[in-house]
């Protein structure tokens, strides 16, 4: 399980690679007692009258794998963005590693984000950088030495099926390849929590399953994963916890809801 150094010093969320690496694999796939992420009564308003998220309560334990699904515009991305403090909650609170994310000062937001691996829905790769540079940047931010970065990037690119393409300009890649660059960047740092927003939207079904398998491997190594997706085929593949957001409300998917998803899926098939 990925552990994080939670010392009381100014920055709040210091982490070192050695912590993550050293303790990471000792106790895989067993949720710890203390939840990694807690959302309590969260509201988020983008428009004054209609909340985008309302009364959201969620507890994610260490080592869990959570699927988030829901129709377009339901608020999946917003949920993730609240966790990585792109937005702040309008009421309620979000605790990550016991700290209130909404109360972080500007200066400590980076240290929060260093504990996260984020696959953005719109990739957010820098088009004029090479593939290598786009993946390496998350490790460079952590201050990893160049040698380590180099070997780790190569390894990660291989895992997402882009071995040997480090020197191409990212804008020249196909949509699915760019998405995999974004995935590689997120997983390269071995974060405590992996937030993946629609990470297989541009991938063919076979590759989507490969990527899901990759996420599950990483999960098995102790990383907590929150995986937002529309792809009901994926939801069917793996028996993970499922959360549905609809009209801003979060519904913990009972077995019935999962059956509903399966029905939806077979209906569309």
């Amino acid at each position: 399980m990925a552990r994080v150094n939670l010392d009381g010093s100014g920055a709040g969320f210091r982490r070192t690679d050695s912590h993550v690496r050293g303790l990471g694999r000792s106790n895989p796939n067993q949720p710890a007692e203390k939840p990694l992420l807690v959302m309590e009564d969260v509201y988020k308003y983008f428009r004054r009258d209609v909340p985008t998220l309302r009364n959201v309560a969620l507890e994610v334990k260490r080592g869990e794998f959570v699927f988030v699904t829901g129709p377009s515009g339901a608020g999946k991305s917003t949920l993730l963005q609240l966790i990585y403090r792109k937005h702040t909650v309008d009421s309620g609170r979000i605790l990550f590693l016991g700290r209130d994310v909404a109360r972080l000062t500007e200066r400590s937001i980076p240290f929060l984000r260093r504990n996260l691996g984020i696959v953005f829905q719109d990739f957010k790769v820098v088009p004029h950088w090479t593939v290598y540079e786009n993946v390496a940047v998350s490790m460079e931010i952590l201050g990893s030495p160049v040698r380590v970065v180099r070997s780790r990037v190569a390894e990660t690119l291989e895992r997402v099926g882009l071995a040997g393409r480090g020197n191409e300009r990212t804008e020249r890649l196909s949509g699915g390849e760019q998405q995999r660059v974004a995935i590689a960047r997120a997983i390269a740092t071995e974060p405590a929590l992996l937030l993946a927003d629609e990470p297989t939207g541009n991938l063919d079904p076979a590759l989507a399953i490969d990527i899901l398998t990759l996420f599950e491997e990483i999960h098995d190594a102790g990383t907590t994963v929150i995986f937002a997706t529309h792809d009901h085929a994926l939801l069917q593949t793996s028996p993970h916890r499922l959360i549905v957001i609809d009209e801003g409300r979060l519904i913990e998917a009972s077995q019935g809801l999962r059956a509903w998803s399966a029905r939806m899926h077979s209906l569309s098939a």
Partner: protein
Amino acid sequence: MDIRTTFARARRGFRDDLRLHVVAVASLVVAFLCLGAALLGVENLARVAERWTQSQHMTVYLGTDASESDIAQLRLVLDSLTEVAEVEYINSARARAQFAEQTEMGADVGSLPAEAFPASLELALHASANRTRITKIGERIKSFNAVEDVETYQDWFGQLGSLLDAGRKAVGILALLVAVCVVAVIGNTIRLAVANRRQEIEVLKLCGATDRFVRTPFIVEGILQGLTASVLSLVLLGISYLSLRGQVEDTVVTLTGMQVVFLGPLTVLGVVCGGGLVGALGSALSLRRYLSV
């Protein structure tokens, strides 16, 4: 943060937007060129002013009845004054010759009476002597028997002084204006260049980079841009100085009695360092807007 990483990232910036960097540096060169030209003006004017104020002098006209010993005594007194740098005795014949030379009257001066050319003592004064002190000295010397009249040229120097003052003020205002412009142009150039890379900054911030991490390579780039621009502009200024000096020098020499000089080494160093500094500051300030992601 790894030094190698910082430089690798700064290099990336240059590689990706080489054209925009060239454009930005070109703007900065123009700005620095203006500044350099203004400084060149200020420096040369300051030299002229110094030279002219240093050339203060006073003429003590001696009576025709002044004896050798009177004159020697007077000289002793004058030499003892701290304001007086040099004393030169000019007799009547030499005064006549000088007048003839200055007015180009030649032999015609012979027709002028001796009274028109009294013997005199020419005093060169130290630049530090102020006007009231000079007037006082003039009055004291007048009380000597041997002295017929004292010309302190105060009117003339007063006029020259106010003229130089005005010129200095004008060039100073110009230099200030240019400096303000330089800062404005540099700030704007860097701001536009940074705006072109907001996407990159956003990605860095979202991946957990601190503001310092984001800033460092931009500041390195800014410094390099500033240094490049200032050095280039000095080189250009030097070239135009060398090519124009020939044409202008004669006139300037006849006008002011001085040669044109280039910026001193300290000023050059100042401009170069200022370039780097302005580049760094400009980058740092322009970034602020895009750092809150």
